[in-house]
C-alpha cells in the first residue's frame, strides 16, 4: 500500500509540472475556453462515482454516487459543448484556412 501511494505522489508531481509547462503557453486569448475545458476534463471524477454506484455496496453509497455522476456528467457535457461553441467564434482577419464553421 505505501509503495502505491509513493507512486501516486510521483505521478501527481510530474502531472503538476506538465500542467504548469503546458498551460503557461496557452494564449491569454483562450483563457476562458481553457477554464471550461479543464473543467470538463476534471469531471473525470465521474469514474470514481461510476465505480461507487456500480459496485452497489450500500444504499447510502449508491444515492451519493448517483448524485455525483449527475453532477460530473453535466460538467463533461456542458464543458465540452460550451468550449466548442466559444472556439468556433474565434476567427482571424487574415485570409487562410477558416477556423471552424460558423454556428
Amino acid at each position: 500500500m505505501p509503495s502505491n501511494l509513493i507512486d501516486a505522489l510521483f505521478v501527481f508531481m510530474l502531472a503538476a509540472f506538465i500542467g504548469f509547462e503546458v498551460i503557461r503557453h496557452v494564449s491569454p486569448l483562450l483563457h476562458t475556453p481553457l477554464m471550461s475545458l479543464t473543467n470538463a476534463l476534471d469531471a473525470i471524477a465521474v469514474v470514481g462515482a461510476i465505480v461507487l454506484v456500480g459496485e452497489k455496496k450500500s444504499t447510502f453509497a449508491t444515492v451519493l454516487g448517483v448524485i455525483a455522476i449527475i453532477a460530473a456528467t453535466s460538467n463533461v457535457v456542458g464543458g465540452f459543448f460550451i468550449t466548442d461553441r466559444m472556439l468556433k467564434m474565434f476567427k482571424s482577419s487574415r485570409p487562410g484556412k477558416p477556423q471552424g464553421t460558423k454556428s
Partner: protein
Amino acid sequence: MNAEFAGSQYAIEIIYLIASALFILSLKWMSSPSTARHGIWAGEIGMVLAIGGTLLRHGIVDWKWIMIALVLGTGIGIPLGMVQMTAVPQRTALSHAFGALCVTLVGTAEFYLRSPDIPKFMMAVLSMEVILGGLTFTGSLMAAGKLQEVLPQRPITYKGQNLVNLLFLGVAIALAVYLVLNPGAKQFFPVIVAISLVVGVFLVIPIGGADMPTVISLLNSYAGLSAAAMGFVLNSKLLIIAGALDGSSGFILSVIMSKAMNRSFTNVVFGAFGQVQTSAAAGQEAKPVRSATPEEAAAILSAANKVVVVPGYGMAVAQAQHKVRELYDQLTKKGVDVRFAIHPVAGRMPGHMNVLLAEADIPYDRLIEMDEINGDFAQTDVALVIGANDVTNPAARTDQSSPIFGMPILDVDKAHTVMVIKRSMNPGFAGIDNPLYYLDQTLMLFGDAKQFVGGIVRELSGGH
C-alpha cells in the same frame, strides 16, 4: 486473482493511460486558436475512453442507476453548455461547484464504506478531499450567485471576519488530524464536511465583484486539487493526472489575475476590496470635463490613422459588442487601423473579454494583450474607452494613496486623444475616481454605450 481478471484489469489501465495522454494533448493544443479545436476532440475521446473503460471493470454489477445518472447529467449539461457568452463566468463557477460536489460525495461515501479500516495517509488525503471539495462547492455557489446577481455583489464584511474564517478552517483541520489518529471517531466526519461547507460561504461572502476573475481561478484550482486527492484515495492515476492538470491551470490563472490587479492571494481572499471609497469621493467636486457628441466623435475617429478601442465589462452590460463590431468595420473600410486593448481582468473571468469580442465577429488577431499594446499608445491617435474604468486609471501609476496604486493599467492617457463613453460621472465598480476624465486631451461621451456607438456608426456610414 485469475488470469482473465488480471488481463482485463491491465486493459483498463492501458485505456486510462491513453486517456491521460489525450488529456495532456488536449491542453497542449489549447495553446493557439488554430489547434484549439483539436484539443476538444482529444479531450472528448479521452473522456469517452475513460468512462467506457470504467464500465468494463470487474465488480460493476449495477448498470441501471449508472445509466439513469449519466442520462440525467447529460440533460443538465446541455442547457449549461448553451448559456450566453456574458453568462459564461457564472456557468463556470457553477460547474466548479458541481465538480466539487461530485468529489465531496464520493469522498463521503468512501469514508463510510471503509471506516474504520482506513490507513492513516489515506484518511489524511480523504479529509483533504472533503475539506477542499466542501468549501469549493459552497464557495463556487456563492460566486455563481454573485455573478448572476442573485446575491449582492458588494462585499459583505464584519469585524474579525478573517479570524472567524481561520478559526473554522482550523477546527476542521484539527478534527481531521484527530480522525487520522483515531480512526474510530466516525462521528467527527460529518462535522468536518459541515464546517467545510460553511467555510466556503464565509470565504466568498466578503469578496467583491471586481475580484471575481481571481476567485473563479482560485476555486478552479481547489476543484482540481480535490479531484487529485480523490485520485489518491481511489488509487486512480488518471484522476490524479486530471486533477493535477486542472489544479495547476487554476493556479496559473489565479497568479495571472492577481498580478493584473496587483494583489496577493491573501489580499484577494482576506482583503474585501470593492467598498466605495467615501472619503475619496467627498473631496472632489465638479471638476471640469470636456464632452462631445456622436458627430464630433465620428469626425475625430475618421480623421485618425490608429485607433485603439479599450473595452471593459460595461460594454458587455450595455450589449454594445455588435455595434462596436460595426464601428470596427466602418473605420477599417476608411483605412483606419483599429485594434483592441485587452486588460487581463477586463471581463468577469480570465479571457472573458476576448470571447465576448470574438462572439461579435471581431477577428482575434485584432485583440492585443496589455503588455503588447501599452508601448503603442503614444503613437495612437485615438483611444476609445468603452465601459472600462479602473483598468485605465492613471492614478494606479502615480497616486500612492490610491487603492489601486501599482495595478498594471492600459496607458490610455498617452494617446493623442482619449474618448470615454460613460453613462455619467459616477465612480466605477471599485468606487475610485478616475483622473483620466479630467485630462486636456480627454473627451467624455456621455450616454449608453450601445446607443452612442450606434450614433457614431450612423455618422460614419452617412457618408459626409
